[in-house]
């Protein structure tokens, strides 16, 4: 892929991820547990993983976390989102590159959602020096399965549609 085209596509994806995370903040969450959310921006991460390389994915996730925490304020927000974002991106990359025979996009997305929550809880327990936040993990795992399933279905439809358009081919 030509560098210019790649740059344009990646910027487009980044802006879409940012819009999705803003849209997501408008959706009320029924469970009063910190960290439960839809994770719509993960749709974009999933698409990048499917069509682009490892380095692109990592850079995009870091940039997304940086920019979205600028919108919603604060370095601690950035730490939370980047820890979850990076861990989930790495897990999804490994699963997609090495184990795509046994994991579908839905499964990879569920694994991504759950590792996102694990990363956030780990940072939360370090920042607040409080082990009891790990008590939230069961709830976060259940919500991760549900939201990961939803996000995974969305991404697999999007990936199929994008494959037909040939946008990501040379």
């Amino acid at each position, binding site marked *: 892929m030509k560098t210019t085209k790649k740059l344009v596509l990646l910027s487009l994806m980044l802006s879409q991820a940012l819009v999705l995370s803003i849209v997501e903040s408008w959706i009320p969450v029924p469970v*009063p*547990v*910190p960290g439960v959310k839809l994770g719509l921006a993960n749709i974009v991460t999933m698409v990048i993983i499917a069509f682009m390389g490892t380095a692109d994915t990592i850079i995009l996730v870091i940039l997304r976390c940086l920019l979205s925490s600028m919108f*919603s304020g*604060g370095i*601690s*927000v950035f730490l*939370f989102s980047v820890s979850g974002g990076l861990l989930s991106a790495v897990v999804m990359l490994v699963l997609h590159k090495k*184990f795509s*025979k*046994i*994991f*579908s996009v*839905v*499964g990879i997305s*569920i*694994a991504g959602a*759950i590792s996102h929550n694990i990363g956030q809880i780990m940072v*939360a327990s370090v*920042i*607040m*020096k*409080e082990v*009891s*936040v790990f*008590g*939230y*993990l*069961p709830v976060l*795992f*259940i919500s*991760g*399965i549900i939201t990961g399933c939803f996000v995974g279905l969305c991404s*697999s439809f999007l990936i199929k549609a994008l494959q037909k358009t040939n946008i990501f081919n040379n």
Partner: protein
Amino acid sequence: MIKKGDIILVVAVSAMVLVGILGFNFYKNTHKGVRKIAVIKKDNEIIRTIDLDNVENPERITVEGKYTDIILVEKGRIRFENADCPDLVCVKTGWLSEKGDLAVCLPNQTIIKIEGETEEVDGITY
């Protein structure tokens, strides 16, 4: 479209959730009936310890920080009553009344948790 690994993953995670919930219930039921001590922490420091069984009159505690949390204490229970943080997860958590209950305000780094105390407590410590 769903592959073998997906099902294994979901089953494994569900099993972990089950074990976690069982373990948590076990912890809750140990030393049942002891005093319920609410601990309020802000920025890694304990700012207040309250023996919930000894609360006579309802009290409001204001925790200042990046945001302001207002904590309401009544006999046997405690909650974030109001806050000006953006997500209000802490307020939505509602009342905490059992050992092991936890409410967190991540934006303000405030935590309320209820611990059981097996030893006798002399009173309220500040």
